[in-house]
């Protein structure tokens, strides 16, 4: 049973490495200049770093928040055992059934 995730991880890593190896390695100074010169005009934010993080590169930041969200939910689900939640829901359901 443990072989499936291992093989999945190996295939995923190989695919990612293959995809990354085809990326063009270019140093583009125009982008830097554009961000620094147009940060205040386009976004109204005086802090250029903040303008890049939340405006020019906002989709990357959204992905970052998604990763954080997934990590938090994973920790919450691992730490809290299923039995605690089941007991709480049972306690809520019992008085309702007695009334009926």
């Amino acid at each position, binding site marked *: 049973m443990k072989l499936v995730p291992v093989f999945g991880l190996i295939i995923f890593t190989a695919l990612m490495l293959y995809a990354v190896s085809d990326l063009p390695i270019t140093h583009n100074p125009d982008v830097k200049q554009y961000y620094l010169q147009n940060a*205040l005009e*386009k*976004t*109204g*934010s*005086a*802090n250029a*770093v*903040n*303008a890049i*993080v*939340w*405006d020019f590169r*906002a*989709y990357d*930041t*959204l992905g970052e*928040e998604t990763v*954080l*969200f997934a*990590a*938090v*939910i994973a*920790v*919450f689900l691992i*730490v*809290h055992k299923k039995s605690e939640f089941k007991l709480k829901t049972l306690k809520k359901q019992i008085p309702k059934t007695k009334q009926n």
Partner: protein
Amino acid sequence: MDLIIKTITRVMFPFIILFGAYTALHGHLTPGGGFPAGATIATAFVLLLLTFRESEVEGRFPEIKLIDIKSIASLALLAIILFEFALRDKLIQYQIPMTVWSGGDTLPANIFGSIIVATGIIIIIYSLIKEEWKK
């Protein structure tokens, strides 16, 4: 913990929250922004969790509600970022440059981002500390 640590935690707690709020609200003008602000706000709550006993803290951190707050803030951030190109130009027209009321959509994004990061760190550390208390 000691009486000294408890007293100093009580005194420092609102000021750490205030500094975190300042970092979030002023993030588009001075160094800072959503992520450092959220980490600063979370530090205040982690300080509370480390100094006070289980019986004193218990019930004051409802995790399900924290996850609700985090989800609502995430949805708001998603809406802001998806409709960014429509929102930004309209917002900038009504804003005054180089004041707190500026920055287009980076101002609400900073606020919601700080809420997401703060609640996330609080949930993780509270869950782990709770396990430690059980032993």
